[in-house]
């Protein structure tokens, strides 16, 4: 399981990196490598060149703005897990980060790398989808911002065009209370199903609700029906259960050897209900 041969470049600036990618359509950016390297070891990917983003300082900085955080694509999961800005202003992300792989992988794996890889079972795509994050893409002489809802397009497939780089992610802060629930075969592994639920409860009633599902489709999925059911209601066990049922019903869930569609749908109902109940009880 040795990597196939490839050329290597470690640019110091974003422009150099974008140029390298523009020059060679079969070159690939190398972020933390925690997803790309295994696929190369299995020889399912054989890029002609790896463009190592590790030396580009600008990709590693995060900025806290008034109403949003801008997180550099090359900031590692470990750094994000330690970030006070994130834990105080994006509690959903902090909670989800605890489910991301294991320490040694979090030390190398990056936020942007995880989003660009877009594994259906990964937590970070669900988080940015749930929080309406925006991906900032940079190409040779081009820049664009793609909202999460347009970014994730399928298994390992995003709106990033050849020659483009994901440089940073803007995540607006919000006033919802969030809970994250996941079922994986085991701690640190890719999710069979996960749910991110955000509620805003005003005098006993749910004023605003956000229910996002992950691991069940080839991309994050919004459970609009569940959200609609929650809004305006006093959240109790029955409401939570019904919201879970609505989130699962009609869901075109994935099926693989770990979990078939029916099981995944059932997990969705359970996880959504559990997340809602945790919030209603004020549990973190």
């Amino acid at each position: 399981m040795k990597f196939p041969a490839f050329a290597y470049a470690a640019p110091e600036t974003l422009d150099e990196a974008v140029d390298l990618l523009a020059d060679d359509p079969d070159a690939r950016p190398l972020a933390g490598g925690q997803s790309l390297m295994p696929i190369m070891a299995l020889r399912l990917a054989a890029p002609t060149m790896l463009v190592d983003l590790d030396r580009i300082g600008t990709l590693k900085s995060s900025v806290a703005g008034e109403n949003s955080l801008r997180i550099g694509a090359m900031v590692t999961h470990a750094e994000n897990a330690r970030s006070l800005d994130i834990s105080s202003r994006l509690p959903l992300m902090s909670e989800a980060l605890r489910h991301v792989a294991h320490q040694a992988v979090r030390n190398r794996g990056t936020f942007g790398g995880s989003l660009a890889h877009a594994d259906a079972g990964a937590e970070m795509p669900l988080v940015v989808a749930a929080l309406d994050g925006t991906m900032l893409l940079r190409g040779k002489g081009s820049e664009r911002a793609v909202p999460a809802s347009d970014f994730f397009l399928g298994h390992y497939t995003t709106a990033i065009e050849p020659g483009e780089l994901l440089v940073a992610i803007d995540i607006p802060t919000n006033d919802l209370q969030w809970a994250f629930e996941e079922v994986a075969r085991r701690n640190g592994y890719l999710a069979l199903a996960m749910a991110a639920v955000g509620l805003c409860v005003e005098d006993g009633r749910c004023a605003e609700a956000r229910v996002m599902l992950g691991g069940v489709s080839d991309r994050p999925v919004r459970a609009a029906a569940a959200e609609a059911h929650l809004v305006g209601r006093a959240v109790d066990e029955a409401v939570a259960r019904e919201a879970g049922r609505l989130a699962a019903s009609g869901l075109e869930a994935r099926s693989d050897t770990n979990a078939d569609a029916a099981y995944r749908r059932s997990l969705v109902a359970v996880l959504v209900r559990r997340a809602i109940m945790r919030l209603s009880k004020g549990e973190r």
Partner: protein
Amino acid sequence: MNFKYSFRLPVPAERAWPILLDLRRVAPCMPGAAIESGQDDEYVGRVKVKIGPIEMTYRGDLVFVERDDAAHRLQVRGTGREIRGGGEAKLASTMQVHPDGDACEVSIDSEYALSGRAAQFGTGLIDEIGAKLMKEFVVRLERLLRDGEGTAVPSATPTHPTATPAPDSARARASDAAAPTAPQARQDDNEALDIVGLAWGPVISRAIPIINLLLSVWIIIYLMVFDR
């Protein structure tokens, strides 16, 4: 894996059948496919598969099993072999046009199987992707047949993934995407594929390459069987 799909066309079978057999127009429905050589009912094609970082190139042998112009039935079998590494993609497909007054029903029944590292990757992920895209492929084929001359212009507006991708929404996406532009099979179809893909907007442009894995052989069959 088995895949069945059928769709109605508002034209009589006699009109649909020849279009179905006109690979010049069917070919672009299968981006990534390229014919290398062949004659009679033995052909060799090539196809490039891309799923994010995953990339595999298959070379396909195609055998024409049965073609019944009277019954409008066509049976083909093909094997695509990985160019690097020994994996295979096998496919057996039956396509039939059932007359129904001045309309007709096109049915496709395909059995496909993968071996080697693609099959060994991600507990059947590739099968899952294959089935999903098989659906999108036939939707495009249906579109081509429906539009007859296939002159429809690709939609400029990229469509977005919907909350819960349902069959109809997938179909809607594909329809927006409209039929591919390149009427002629290029020297390098993979290149053509990207042009087609971009025209299709983000959704399909990203999805297209994946189609190849399991459909390439299927389409190459068209290129083979009817290029005579």
